[in-house]
C-alpha cells in the first residue's frame, strides 16, 4: 500500500476493483464506512455483485480480464475533459518529459520484439547535451508524455470500452464522473485492489493503469489517496519484503543472474543514474544496501577483496517463479521440495499438472499446521500410493500466535507479536525448523560437498538456546555497526556493535551489516520500535498516522511519496487533511516523515530553492512515471485479451500480451468448446487453500461445500436449479461442484454477443473436515509478463448439469 488502512477513512471516492474487500478484508470496511459517513462514494467493480457491491454507491459489472479498458475509459474521460490536476502533473510526474519521437504503438505492439522480449530501443527520453531529460512544461509538444498519453487513451472511448468490458455505457460514465471528481486538489480518491487485478497475464499493467489514473488525479502521496494493495496472508508483506520471491533479495534488491560475474558487474546493472542534481536518485545508494546485506550473511568472511562474498550468492539462469518450478518438476528436473506453509495441490494453477509433478520428487518436506492436500498428494483420490516414490516428511509447524516475531501488514506496519500459547505437541516455529535444517546442512557440508563455503561460512549469531532468538534476528535485520564509525556532517558517532539508527547510515565499505535495508530503524538503540503501541492524540495527528504505533517502513514513513501531497512551495494541496507541509522558517517538514528530507523546489517568493529535490526519490529522474519504460510489456497499459477469451481483441490485432511465456500451447481452450468465461475467488468464511478453515467446525458450518455461482439466465439455459451438481470443464480438466443460482451474475453484451460468466470458489480440496473439488484443476499454467503470477482470474470453461445430489 502506498497509504494506510486508517487513511482510507479520508478518501472522497473509493474504487474497489479486482478486490472484494468486504469479504476478504472485512476490517477495511470500518474505514470505508467512516469515509462514507463523511460523504465519500464507494464504487465496486466486479464480474459479480458481491458483499462489497452491497455496500457500494455504484456497482459496475465487467467481463473478467478487462480492467485495462475499464480504467482506460476513466482516463479517457479525464483527459478529454481536461479534468486532471495539472500543477501536480508538472511538479511531480514525467508528464512533461519528451519521449523518443520514434516511439509508437502499432497494432498492439510497442516496438520490436526479439527472442520473446521487446528490444525497448524507442522507449527512452530525449536528453539535452548534459544528459538531462528534455521537458515541455506547456504539455503541448506531441512527443511529450502527456500528449502521448492522450493519444494512447483516445482509443478507450466509452462506447468501445463498453463493447469490451460489457459494462453499460451509462454505468461507465457514472463511474468516470464520480471518480474524476477527485482531480480537484482538495479531493482525494483511492483505489483498493487485490488478486482480481494482479492474477492476469497483464496484471502488472492493470496496476499501471491505476497508477496513471491516480497521478492524473493528483492522488498519490495525499491523505485518502494512493494505490492500496490489499495483501492476503497476514505476513505476506513481510515475506515479500524479505525476498520470498525468486527475483529479489531482501529489501527488493535484485537477485543476481549468471551474467553478474562479480559485484562490480552486478552493481553497474543495479545502480541507477541521473544527471539532474535535483533528483535524489535514491537507488544510487544501492551499493550500501547490498554490501551491508552480504556482511549480514557472511560476517568477517565478506571483505572488499572478495567482493564481500558476492560469489557465494546463487546466480539464477532462468525464471524460477511458481509456474516455472512446477514445469521443471514435471520434467523431473527438480528432485526435492520444501513446501513451507504452502499448499500448491490446491492453490497452484493447472492442478493436474502440479499434482502429477509432485510425484517426480524424490523427497518433499511439508511444514504446515495440518496435513494438507500437498503433503498427502500421494494418497489423493484416483492415485495408487504404491505408484509414487516420493518420500514425504511432515513437520508440524507453530501457528502465528504460538511464536514470537513481527508481522508486516498491507500498510507496511511491522507489528511485533508475542507468544500467546505454546505450540501443541511437537509443532515448532519456522525459525526453529530452519535453524535445525541450517545446522544439519552446515555439518554435512563441513564434511565435504561441492562448493561448501556459501553454507559453511554463513554467519548465524542468534544465540545458543534451543531456538534462535527472534530479537537477535530482528536486530540483525535492522543492522549493526561493525566498527566505530563517525558521521561528522550529522555530528554523530557510533561504536562497534551499535544498532544502526536508519538506512541513511549504512555504508558500502563493509563497516555496516543489515539483513534488510528497508527495515533499518525497526530495532535500534531506542529499542524494538515494532513493539510500540502508543496511539496518537487527534490534535497532534489530525489524519491518524499514529507514528508511535509499531513501526512502518521505510523509516516510519506512513504515507509514501508524501512530498507530492504539496505544491512546489511545500504547501499541502488539501490543507484540511495535510500529510506533510514545509515550514520555511524552521527549514523542516511538519507531519509524516517526509519522503526525503530535502526542502521543496521553490522558496515562498517564487525563487528556486537550490537544495530542493524532486518528490519521487525512488525513480532515477525523481518524477512519477506516467510513461514507464522499465516494464517488460510496455510503457503504457494496453488491452489484451486473457489467454483464453470468447472474443477477438477489439483494440488491436494483438490478441494476447505479446511477451508472456506460453508454457503449454496445446492447453489453450477455444470458445467453441468452452464458451463460458470463468473466474475464481474467495469467500470470507474460508481461507486460501482451506487447511486453516475447512478444519474448523464453525466455519465449515457456514460454507460446507465448494460451489460455483451461475446467473439465472445461464442456469435456465442449461436447466440447472439451485443446489444441482454441475460438471465444469476446461481443456485442462474438469470438476464436479454444486451450483448456486443467483441474480448477482448477469450475462454481458460483449462485441455484440451475449457472454456468460461463472465464478468458482477455490478453497476446497480432498483433505480436512469439509472436502470438495479444487477449482484450480481448471486454471491455466500461464502467468503475467513481469511477475509470472498465474492467470487465475479469467479463463474459458463449459458447464453441464450432472445427475445426482451433492454429497
Amino acid at each position, binding site marked *: 500500500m502506498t497509504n494506510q488502512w486508517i487513511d482510507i477513512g479520508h478518501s472522497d471516492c473509493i474504487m474497489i476493483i479486482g478486490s472484494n474487500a468486504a469479504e476478504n478484508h472485512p476490517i477495511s470496511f470500518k474505514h470505508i464506512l467512516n469515509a462514507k459517513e463523511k460523504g465519500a462514494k464507494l464504487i465496486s467493480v466486479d464480474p459479480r455483485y458481491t458483499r462489497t457491491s452491497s455496500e457500494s454507491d455504484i456497482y459496475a459489472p465487467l467481463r473478467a480480464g478487462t480492467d485495462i479498458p475499464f480504467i482506460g475509459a476513466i482516463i479517457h474521460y479525464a483527459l478529454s475533459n481536461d479534468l486532471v490536476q495539472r500543477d501536480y502533473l508538472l511538479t511531480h510526474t514525467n508528464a512533461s518529459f519528451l519521449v523518443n519521437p520514434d516511439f509508437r504503438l502499432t497494432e498492439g505492439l510497442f516496438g520490436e520484439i526479439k527472442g520473446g522480449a521487446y528490444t525497448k530501443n524507442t522507449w527512452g527520453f530525449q536528453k539535452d547535451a548534459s544528459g538531462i531529460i528534455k521537458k515541455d512544461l506547456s504539455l503541448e509538444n506531441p512527443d511529450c508524455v502527456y500528449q502521448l498519453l492522450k493519444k494512447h487513451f483516445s482509443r478507450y472511448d466509452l462506447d468501445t470500452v463498453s463493447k469490451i468490458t460489457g459494462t453499460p455505457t451509462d454505468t461507465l460514465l457514472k463511474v468516470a464522473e464520480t471518480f474524476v471528481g477527485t482531480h480537484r486538489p482538495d479531493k482525494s480518491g483511492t483505489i483498493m485492489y487485490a488478486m482480481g487485478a494482479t492474477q492476469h497475464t497483464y496484471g502488472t499493467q492493470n496496476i499501471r493503469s491505476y497508477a496513471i489514473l491516480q497521478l492524473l488525479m493528483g492522488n498519490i502521496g495525499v491523505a485518502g489517496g494512493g494505490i492500496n494493495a490489499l495483501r492476503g496472508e497476514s505476513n505476506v508483506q513481510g515475506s515479500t519484503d524479505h525476498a520470498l520471491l525468486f527475483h529479489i533479495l531482501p529489501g527488493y534488491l535484485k537477485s543476481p543472474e549468471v551474467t553478474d560475474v562479480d559485484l562490480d558487474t552486478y552493481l553497474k546493472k543495479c545502480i541507477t543514474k541521473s544527471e539532474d542534481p535535483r533528483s535524489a536518485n535514491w537507488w544510487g545508494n544501492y551499493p550500501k544496501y547490498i554490501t551491508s546485506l552480504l556482511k549480514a550473511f557472511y560476517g568477517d568472511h565478506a571483505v572488499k577483496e572478495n567482493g564481500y562474498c558476492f560469489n557465494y550468492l546463487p546466480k539464477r539462469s532462468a525464471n524460477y517463479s511458481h509456474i516455472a518450478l512446477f514445469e521443471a518438476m514435471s520434467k523431473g528436473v527438480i528432485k526435492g521440495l520444501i513446501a513451507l506453509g504452502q499448499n500448491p495441490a490446491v492453490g497452484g494453477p493447472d492442478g493436474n499438472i502440479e499434482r502429477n509433478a509432485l510425484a517426480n520428487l524424490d523427497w518433499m518436506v511439508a511444514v504446515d499446521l495440518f496435513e494438507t492436500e500437498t503433503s498427502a498428494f500421494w494418497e489423493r483420490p484416483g492415485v495408487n500410493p504404491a505408484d509414487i516414490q516420493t518420500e514425504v516428511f511432515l513437520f508440524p509447524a507453530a501457528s502465528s500466535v504460538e511464536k514470537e516475531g513481527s508481522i508486516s501488514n498491507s500498510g507496511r506496519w511491522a507489528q511485533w507479536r508475542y507468544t500467546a500459547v505454546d505450540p501443541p505437541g511437537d509443532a515448532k516455529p519456522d525459525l526453529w525448523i530452519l535453524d535445525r535444517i541450517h545446522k544439519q546442512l552446515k555439518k554435512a557440508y563441513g564434511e565435504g560437498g561441492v562448493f561448501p563455503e556459501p553454507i559453511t561460512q554463513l554467519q548465524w549469531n542468534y544465540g545458543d538456546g534451543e531456538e534462535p532468538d527472534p530479537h537477535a534476528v530482528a536486530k540483525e535485520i535492522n543492522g549493526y555497526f561493525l566498527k566505530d564509525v563517525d558521521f561528522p556532517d550529522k555530528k554523530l558517532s557510533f561504536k562497534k556493535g551499535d544498532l544502526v539508527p536508519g538506512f541513511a547510515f549504512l555504508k558500502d565499505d563493509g563497516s555496516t551489516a543489515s539483513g534488510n535495508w528497508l527495515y533499518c530503524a525497526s530495532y535500534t538503540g531506542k529499542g524494538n520500535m515494532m513493539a510500540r503501541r502508543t496511539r496518537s492524540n487527534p490534535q497532534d495527528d489530525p489524519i491518524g498516522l499514529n507514528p508511535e504505533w509499531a513501526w512502518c517502513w521505510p523509516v516510519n514513513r506512513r504515507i509514501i511519496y508524501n512530498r507530492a501531497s504539496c505544491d512546489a512551495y511545500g504547501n499541502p494541496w488539501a490543507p484540511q487533511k495535510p500529510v506533510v507541509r514545509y515550514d520555511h522558517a524552521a527549514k523542516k517538514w511538519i507531519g509524516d516523515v517526509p519522503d526525503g528530507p530535502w526542502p521543496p523546489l521553490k522558496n515562498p517568493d517564487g525563487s528556486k530553492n537550490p537544495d530542493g529535490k524532486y518528490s519521487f526519490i525512488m525513480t532515477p529522474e525523481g518524477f512519477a512515471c506516467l510513461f514507464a519504460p522499465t516494464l517488460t510489456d510496455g510503457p503504457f497499459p494496453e488491452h489484451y485479451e486473457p489467454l483464453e477469451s470468447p472474443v477477438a481483441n477489439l483494440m488491436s490485432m494483438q490478441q494476447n500480451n505479446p511477451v508472456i511465456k506460453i508454457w503449454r500451447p496445446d492447453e489453450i481452450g477455444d470458445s467453441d468448446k468452452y464458451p463460458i468465461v470463468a473466474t475464481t475467488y474467495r469467500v470470507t468464511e474460508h481461507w486460501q487453500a482451506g487447511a486453516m478453515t475447512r478444519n474448523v467446525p464453525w466455519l465449515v*458450518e457456514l460454507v460446507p461445500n465448494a460451489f460455483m455461482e451461475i446467473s439465472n439466465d445461464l442456469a435456465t439455459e442449461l436447466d440447472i436449479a439451485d443446489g444441482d451438481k454441475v460438471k465444469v470443464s476446461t481443456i485442462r480438466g474438469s470438476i464436479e461442484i454444486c451450483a448456486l443460482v443467483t441474480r448477482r451474475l448477469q450475462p454481458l453484451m460483449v462485441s455484440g454477443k451475449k457472454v456468460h460468466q461463472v465464478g468458482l470458489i477455490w478453497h476446497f480440496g480432498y483433505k480436512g473436515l469439509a472436502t470438495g473439488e479444487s477449482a484450480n484443476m481448471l486454471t491455466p499454467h500461464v502467468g503475467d509478463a513481469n511477475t509470472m503470477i498465474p492467470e487465475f482470474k479469467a479463463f474459458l470453461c463449459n458447464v453441464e448439469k450432472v445427475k445426482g445430489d*451433492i454429497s
Partner: protein
Amino acid sequence: MNNNDQMAFLYDSTKCMGCRGCQVACKQWHELPAEKTRFFAGGADSGYQNPIHLSEHTYTMITFHEVVEDGKLMDWAFWKTQCQHCLEPACASVCLVGAMHKTENGPVVWDSHKCIGCRYCMLACPFNIPKFEWKKVISDIRKCDFCADRIAEGLLPACAKTCATGAILFGKRGELIEIAKERLSKDPEKYYQHIYGLEEAGGTCVLNISNVPLKHLGYPDNVPMEPLEKNTQIDMAAISPAVIGLGAILGVTAFVINRRIELAKTKEKGGQNE
C-alpha cells in the same frame, strides 16, 4: 428501570456486509457446537445462509436476501436474526415456573434449573425465537441471552464486539433510538423509514433499520404493536384464581353434598335402633 436506560442493540442492515463474524463469535463465546449443514438446504435464494434456521445450537445468524425489483437485482441485503429481548416479553409472561424472565437492565434470560421444558415460550414468542434441546434427555430452552454475563462485567456482547463496521451497536435503548432516528432523517433515500423494535410487541431491546422493508428480509410482519403479554397476562393471571376459585366452589359443593349424604345415613341408622 426506565425503558430508555435498558441495554439494547441497534442493528443497521445497511452497514452489515454479511461477514458472519457475529454468528461465529456467538458460537465461540457460548461454546456452542457447529451444526452439520449442506449448502442450499434452505432452498432457492437462500444462498450462503447456513444453518438455515436458529436452533438450540445457533443463537444468532445472518440471513441473505437478493432484493429484486421488476426482475432486476436491486441489492444483496442481510439481516441478523436473534431474540429481540422484548421490553415486555411474552415468553416470560407465559412461563409457568418463572424460569424465563426479563432482567432489569434489558436481557431476557432464563434459569436453566427452573425450566421444565414445557415450551410454552416457543408458542408465545411472536418472533419464533426460543428453541428446544430436542435431543437431550434433560432438555432446556435455548436462545440469545444478550451475553448477559459479559454485560454484567462491562464487556460488549460477543457479536457487537466482533462487528467490524459497527452494524451492531450496543448501548442504552433511548440513545440508540435517537441514533436510528438521526440516520433515518439524514438519509431518507437510503433508509426505509421505520425502526423495527420501536413499538413491535410493545417495544424490543433489539432495534433494526434497513434500506428495504424488513419483511423482505424475513422479519415477521404480523407482530402487533403492543405487548403480547398484555392479553396473555390477563388470561394467565386468571388461571390460578380460576382454578383455585373453581376448586373452592367444587370443594364446598362436594362437602355440602357429602355431609347431607352422611347425615341421611346417620338418620337411617338412628331410626332402626328405637
